[in-house]
């Protein structure tokens, strides 16, 4: 093993230019990935957050009493499809909530409460919000909506642009996934190409080694170790640059931009580990596999 490590070090030293090129390409791709992964996650996280706000509000008629409330609650919890969570907001609770958000309007109401009792129903999945609404208030032939229970006044999605939200967030998620896949593909191709180039320069060397009677793995180990070394070096440098960038630019801005503190972004440490592992793995595998072509002597 010591021999292989020494061989790997020697070849890094003797082929410093191609080695540097391989290392730099790893550094750059890891850097780009390191910036892009959190962005993807934050964006899809933000999209998910928006989707979670898709609610179906069931407003009760103003005169409904305790019995009506219990009947509707039972109907929602047990007899309706697509229901995820049901939350009851009484007139008073709704009034307090709204007053807190918009004090200037509510002071003008002089203590009267126009708000109805409401069931806030979260659908089991955001995509089912519209189906849930249709189940509770099926459209009639006249184009208006009838409710399934006499105590229910209207059934509304909070704002009626649920379908817009669903569409846009889905597009954002798919676009991000596609971009991420393309970027990963590009990095793998770039790294493997750089490695192949530096191996191509040394194919004669491999040929001679084979003729002297070296087994495939005897030739391959130094190359794999070299790949690990260069990958680790490139990865560490990239992570260092990322850390500096994070501390210098992102952290001061976190308090101002919601996107930056999106909860679904992975921890920086985990991200750094993943990037390091990927760079080492790709370059080691890349050099091991690219060598196969030259080993057929």
């Amino acid at each position: 093993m010591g021999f292989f490590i020494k061989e790997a070090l020697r070849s890094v030293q003797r082929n410093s230019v191609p080695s540097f090129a391989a290392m730099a390409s790893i550094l750059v791709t890891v850097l780009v990935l390191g910036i892009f992964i959190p962005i993807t996650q934050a964006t899809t996280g933000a999209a998910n957050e928006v989707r979670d706000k898709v609610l179906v509000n069931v407003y009760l008629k103003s005169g409904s009493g305790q019995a009506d409330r219990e009947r509707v609650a039972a109907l929602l919890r047990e007899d309706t499809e697509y229901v995820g969570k049901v939350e009851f907001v009484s007139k008073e609770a709704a009034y307090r909530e709204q007053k807190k958000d918009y004090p200037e309007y509510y002071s003008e109401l002089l203590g009267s409460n126009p708000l109805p009792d409401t069931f806030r129903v979260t659908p089991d999945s955001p995509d089912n919000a519209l189906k849930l609404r249709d189940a509770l208030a099926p459209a009639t032939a006249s184009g208006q909506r009838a409710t399934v229970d006499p105590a229910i006044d209207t059934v509304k999605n909070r704002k009626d642009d649920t379908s817009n939200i669903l569409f846009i967030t889905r597009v954002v998620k798919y676009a991000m996934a596609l971009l991420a896949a393309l970027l990963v593909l590009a990095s793998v191709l770039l790294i493997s190409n750089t490695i192949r180039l530096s191996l191509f320069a040394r194919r004669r060397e491999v040929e001679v080694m084979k003729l002297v009677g070296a087994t495939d793995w005897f030739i391959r180990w130094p190359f794999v170790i070299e790949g690990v070394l260069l990958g680790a070096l490139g990865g560490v440098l990239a992570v260092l640059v990322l850390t500096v960038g994070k501390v210098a630019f992102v952290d001061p801005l976190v308090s101002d931009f919601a996107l930056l503190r999106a909860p679904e972004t992975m921890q920086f440490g985990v991200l750094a580990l993943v990037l390091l592992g990927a760079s080492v793995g790709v370059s080691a595998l890349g050099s091991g596999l690219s060598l196969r072509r030259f080993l057929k002597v």
Partner: protein
Amino acid sequence: MAIVERHAQARNRAAAPQDRAPAVVEFRGVSKQYDSGDRGLEQASFAIERGEFVFLVGQTGSGKSTIMRLLIKEHEPSAGTIKVAGRDITAITGKDVAHYRRNLGVVFQDFKLLPNRTVYDNVAYALQVTGHKRKEIRAKVSDILRLTGLSLKLHSYPDQLSGGEQQRVAVARAFVNHPPLLLADEPTGNLDPETSIGIMQLLYRINRTGTTVIVATHDNAMVDRMRRRVIEVNQGVVIRDEHGGGYSQQDENTSEFGLLMRGEPSPQPRRLSTPGDSFDDIFRD
């Protein structure tokens, strides 16, 4: 002298066939057709005994290098069997190819040294692949470099050496394992006559330690001077197998050379009618 000697050998073999060691190299009906359709070798049959020094001669493209490549298993024959030390090498596959090559010393026209290793490391590499201890390697490499006269060049890189010196390093690397068989493909092709003599001397000395040496060459002066066994190939066909022979069957006389110069068609190569008596002996039973 050669005939008397060979006759004696044949008598001895016939007397005690079981004592007979298998030929070091044995081609039996070997053909090689390249993928491109070129014919490398056709129905070549010959046997080389232990300790022989054999010249493989012929024009470029005649099949000398094909024989060498088949022996180092860079190529596989299309037909026939090749035995080395009694073992069918076409049956060697995978990892065993590397182990088989460790029993060969190989020298090439273009030296094939590792460019970013010193002379010492180039020679040592052949031992490192076999997993020798560092102490052993140091001793063996020093010995062989002294034998080849390279003691002062230990730490030079190949591009700092002359062609002759590089070829000496290649020979040293080929012989450091003391392989039973040493193959040299045009070892003097890139060298001037003076240097060539030095390399041939080296190969001859190696041969005298008991190693079988096969040299492919078109250095006619060398072949004529050394008078060893000569196997001549032409267009993939073995046309001559002669002990103590010269480069060509007989010297061309002036009129023959004149014919050649005037562009008369050269005679078709004629297959060797008796493919070497030693060969027949081996397969008699």
